[in-house]
């Protein structure tokens, strides 16, 4: 199995250094490198790599901003010289990071972890332009960051022009519209219940009939969501209720 990887890092020597480490791992196929976030964004959107080595401090935009711009985030290993602050801002799904100069053993361990993650990936067949259950999205709300797998999200809710994402006990704001998000979600188990919300059907605990032919859903976390009348027909149809 080959892991298709890219490097986004502004220092040429640091990129060389990283390439030297990658040489020892034949399974990694380095398909490109970029020296800043804008070039990195183009590269990732074109090549859709599975693994991203990402520096945090870069000119104009930092590594986090790159992740925010991506619809789908590859498995990411941060490479940083000294950014305790930045690394600590991760709340969920502690991603891997390597401190520069990089210890070869630590590097090998990180790659092993990537392999395990990728093996989990294989079984979900990715069809069209849509995300899959194991696709990750990056959310930065204020000082905190999350990397969340689509399959782990319970539901989405409109807040103004943005969207609140509910997963685990977290509910950060994602700076995208609900419609934008809907286009990317796998249709198999994400369902638009009404104008305000989209739910992950895997997280529904209870469905009860509500008045006017509507339905009321209770989610795993206890949140209650009303399904509009029009959508209730679709819902029943889909769930073969």
């Amino acid at each position, binding site marked *: 199995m080959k892991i298709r990887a890219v490097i986004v890092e502004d220092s040429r020597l*640091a990129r060389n250094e990283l390439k030297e480490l990658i040489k020892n791992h034949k399974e990694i196929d380095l398909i490109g490198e970029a020296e800043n976030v804008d070039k990195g964004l183009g590269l990732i959107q074109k090549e859709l790599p599975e693994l991203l080595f990402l520096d945090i401090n870069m000119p104009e935009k930092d590594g986090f901003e790159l992740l925010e711009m991506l619809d789908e985030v590859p498995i990411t290993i941060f490479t940083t010289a000294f950014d305790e602050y930045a690394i600590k801002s991760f709340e969920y799904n502690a991603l891997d990071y390597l401190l520069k100069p990089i210890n070869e053993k630590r590097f090998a361990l990180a790659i092993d972890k990537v392999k395990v993650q990728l093996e989990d990936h294989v079984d979900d067949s990715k069809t069209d332009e849509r995300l899959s259950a194991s696709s990750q999205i990056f959310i930065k709300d204020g000082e905190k960051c999350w990397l969340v797998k689509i399959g782990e999200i319970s539901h989405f809710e409109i807040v103004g022009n943005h969207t609140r994402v509910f997963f685990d006990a977290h509910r950060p704001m994602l700076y995208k519209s609900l419609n934008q998000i809907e286009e990317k979600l796998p249709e198999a188990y994400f369902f638009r219940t009404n104008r305000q919300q989209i739910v992950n059907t895997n997280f529904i605990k209870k469905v009860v009939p509500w008045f006017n032919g509507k339905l009321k859903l209770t989610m795993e976390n206890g949140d209650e969501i009303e399904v509009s009348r029009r959508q209730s027909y679709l819902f029943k149809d889909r769930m073969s209720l």
Partner: protein
Amino acid sequence: MNISEKSRNRLFWVLQFAGWGFLNLISVFFLKKLSVAFVVFSIITGISVGILSTSLLRVYLKRKVFFENFGLSDLFKIVLSSLIAAFLYGSLSVGLGVLYEKYGPGITEMEKEFLKAYDNIWIVVFNSLFIIFSWVVTYLVIKLLMKINKDRIERLKLNTNLKQAQLNTLKGQINPHFMFNSLNNIRGLMLEDVEKSREMLTKLSEMLRYSLTKNNVNAISVEEELEMVDNYIALSKIQFEDRLEYIEEVGKDTLPLLIPPMIVQLLIENATKHGISALKAGGRIILHIKKSKEVLTILVTNTGKLQIAKNSTQLGLKNIRQRLHLLYGDKATFQLSEQLGNVVAEIKIPMP
């Protein structure tokens, strides 16, 4: 306790009224058999004359006499102004006494006796001098005590600030981000240019040594500081490569001059961090050091915009300001400005 100008004024007037009031009340009650009119008149005039003459004296002393560099001329000023105030006090007292005698209600024997004292010029002179000089002494003693207290507080403050500044320097000396990036870059450089890598390792060691040994020193020659700066630039260049252009224009006559350590270095570091590293295309840093008659000017110009980064603590800039203030008071200046797409940091240090 640091008393503000306003409360100091209030204190002055309270003491002024209390003092003169008390003095006049007791001096009048010592004498008996005086008419009510006489007592009231002498208390009111006594208080007014006293307050008027000494308040005028205070206005003068406040403007012209300073304890900061007290000299013979100040003593002379105090004596002379006090004499004038005493003259004013004496003549007003006598004048008002005469007026009372002429136009006031009937005068008793006792009062006549009392006023007679004013006929003897020497008694008046002695009396005025004694009262005014006592006032001056009291005034100066209170002022001096306040100043001593204020000085003590300032000294304590200065001490804490100094310690804080030293701590900040220590903290700010080698930025860990810079150090680890440099080490990583050197590691990468070894793959392509061993000779240069060796040179860079030496430079990094020199920087570490400098920061470990020079943090207790208060002054260092420009030449020595520049060695540190050059090391920093050389190491930054392997990070930024052609994104960093550096120009140094340093007057030869400035090299032996003494400056506080790490000041130029911090300016350059700031220019790199907020100027070059934030720009995709990189930019240029120009260091200018020149000496005019009594002022050493350090000018660091970098491409970029003057903006305070959202997570910047501005520790570096605070550190520079504080140390300059501690070492030179108001005689050194530090300014940061934006000029035509460049950020300009300018430090002026007085030279002995």
